């Protein structure tokens, strides 16, 4: 097994599709929110929706780490690169994300700031070692998947006494975001969005395990199926969710058993707990302030915390007017409901964050799906 195309098999897909058609009751709709941008990307890239019956609908969730980072934090990164003159190391996706006043790290780079794209945080450590006279800051973003490598790098830097290295920490937590969506008025009170089940994160769950979702399934009475990022995974997981819905079960099931266990990766969890602690509150683009939804670097590693070292203060910054990213990230609206979509906002000149990352719902719609007629979730539910 090479794990390249085994989970993209057409015959298996057709088998799953006919099982879904058989089991999905024609009298009702099934709105299944896939949490992760990785799922969204797979659904569009492989054309999964084409194989699904009309009444089974994927609703795209907020699990795109690039998309949920608020403008204020990107402004902070720009401040580090431009005003503090650091070497700012970032994953590629972040470079084009619009900050306030339509600035971005890529534009800052063109203007002379030392912004470098890295493929892993290890490259930032190398840059710090090679430039002892410069401050090197790693722009740490991502969910639980990218957090353990950041923890390892901080510990390495401390062990080596790498005094010119620090991390601008923006790591966020998945369970807090899911809970926030379920508690949001649109979902809970108004009922304008019906989310019948969740496809739980795949890579994130390999770290945290399936156990943290048990609370939601129970408390909010919604099935959760942990799903891999391959197209067969998202189809099989949808089938499992449909069965739970039909049988009125609300359990955490694990479709992605080839990677995810109930407990997760204990070693990684321990590393994260050693280096990071919960922030009482953190702003998410689209979700607003979410309590206990992000991590900061512990006092013991304060020397490697760019926020402390450069006295970074995050000012609230507004998203572009009439950008619907906040609603799209909660599954309340579809990209095509946004006036900016495909007019002034395209992947070449993104206004909202959902248009930047290939995992963002808007970018996925635009890049892979704009040939098909669209309907909004509100119309679909009607």
């Amino acid at each position, binding site marked *: 097994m090479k794990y390249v195309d085994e989970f993209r098999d057409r015959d298996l897909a057709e088998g799953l599709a006919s099982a879904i058609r058989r089991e999905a009751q024609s009298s009702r709709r099934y709105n299944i929110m896939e949490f992760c941008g990785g799922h969204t990307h797979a659904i569009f890239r*492989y054309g999964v929706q084409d194989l699904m019956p009309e009444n089974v609908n994927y609703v795209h969730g907020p699990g795109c780490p690039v998309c949920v980072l608020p403008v204020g934090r990107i402004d902070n990164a720009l401040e580090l690169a431009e005003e503090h003159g650091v070497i700012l190391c970032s994953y590629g996706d972040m470079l084009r994300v619009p900050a306030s006043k339509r600035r971005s790290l890529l534009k800052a780079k063109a203007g002379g700031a030392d912004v470098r794209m890295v*493929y892993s945080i290890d490259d930032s450590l190398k840059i710090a070692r090679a430039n002892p006279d410069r401050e090197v800051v790693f722009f740490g973003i991502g969910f639980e998947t990218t957090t353990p490598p950041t923890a390892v790098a901080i510990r390495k830097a401390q062990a080596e006494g790498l005094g010119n290295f620090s991390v601008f920490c923006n790591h966020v937590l998945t369970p807090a975001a899911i809970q926030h969506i379920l508690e949001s008025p649109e979902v809970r009170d108004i009922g304008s969005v019906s989310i019948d089940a969740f496809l739980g994160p795949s890579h994130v769950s390999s770290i945290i395990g399936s156990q943290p979702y048990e609370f939601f399934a129970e408390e909010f009475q919604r099935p959760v199926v942990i799903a891999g990022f391959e197209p067969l995974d998202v189809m099989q997981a949808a089938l499992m969710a449909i069965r739970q819905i039909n049988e009125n079960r609300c359990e955490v099931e694990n479709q992605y058993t080839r990677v995810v266990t109930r407990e997760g990766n204990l070693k990684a969890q321990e590393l994260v707990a050693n280096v990071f602690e919960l922030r009482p509150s953190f702003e998410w683009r689209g979700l607003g302030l979410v309590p206990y939804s992000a991590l900061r670097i512990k006092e013991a590693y304060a020397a490697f915390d760019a926020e402390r070292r450069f006295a970074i203060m995050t000012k609230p910054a507004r998203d572009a007017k009439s950008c619907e990213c906040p609603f799209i990230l909660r599954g309340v609206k579809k990209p095509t409901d946004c006036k900016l979509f495909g007019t002034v906002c395209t992947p070449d000149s993104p206004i909202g964050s959902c248009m930047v990352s290939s*995992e963002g719902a808007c970018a996925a719609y635009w890049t892979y799906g704009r040939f098909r007629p669209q309907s909004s979730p509100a119309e679909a539910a009607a």
Partner: protein
Amino acid sequence: MTSAVARFAARETALPLDGTVEMIHGSGGRATAELVRALFHRHFDNALLAQGNDQAAFDVQAGRMVMTTDAHVISPLFFPGGDIGSLAVHGTINDVAMAGARPLYLSAAFILEEGFPLADLERIVASMARASREAGVPIVTGDTKVVEKGKGDGVFITTAGLGIVPRGVHISGDRAAPGDAILVSGTLGDHGVAVLSKRENLTFETEILSDSAALHGLVADMIAAVPGIHCLRDPTRGGLAATLNEIAQQSRVGMRLAEAAIPFKPDVLAACELLGLDPLYIANEGKLIAICGKAHAERLLGVMREHPLGRDAAIVGEVAADPHAFVQMQTRFGGSRMVDWLAGDPLPRIC
């Protein structure tokens, strides 16, 4: 006396190739002349260049000519299966050949960065000379400039090419018509993955070599068999996706691809998977896309497969009437998707 003159003359033939490029090599004085003679003339060696003028003069036959130019700024300069030198020759020959033309002559202009090792420069020039000899297309004129250290990236090479189009051949990106077949000459993405594998911050193990090659021989065979080919283009930067979108726009038609028919090497797919890249967007330097009337498609495919550079050729889709000029693809998985223009650089996904 004679011996002193002989000694001075001998000094002029000594190769100044053990050091690095210096500003003086671009001064226009003796050092420039020595570099040109000892490096460029010696390797490129042909009668037109040997005239020693600032231009090459040659006779042409009456007919339709094509002219193209290409700038090369690749990093790293040396990569598995080629280097900036062979690439500069192949790239321009291919741009000439994609008009169905027979390439005649090339020019080469070098922008060298102060401090660049002359030994590396010689490797590049020797590689260009080899590529040009093998293709039978001489480099007949050139220029060299030197920029201060930090103002270049080692070597930049610009090549231009001239070619002549056979009578009756009219190949252009605006000629794709609904119903036409879309063919590719072989596996896609090899060049881009070979280059990525050697990027400083990304080194990974792969046996993939760049496909860099001159395609005019393949094109000549194709035209001989099917003179009425509508479009030819080499899918370089932006890969198959960008090239098909360009042609779709030019011809105001849509394209419908079958993913399962597109040839890829398993190693290329694996590397793209690892890096989160889509192989449809990865660059090629020795492949072409051909669009021709459906009735000629099988014949053209047969001819391509008989040529060593077209062994893995395949029919990958067809042209459709589409006011939006969308390129769409039936996925191997059984769904459909757009194959859009590339937005920005292909950035690896993080999650």
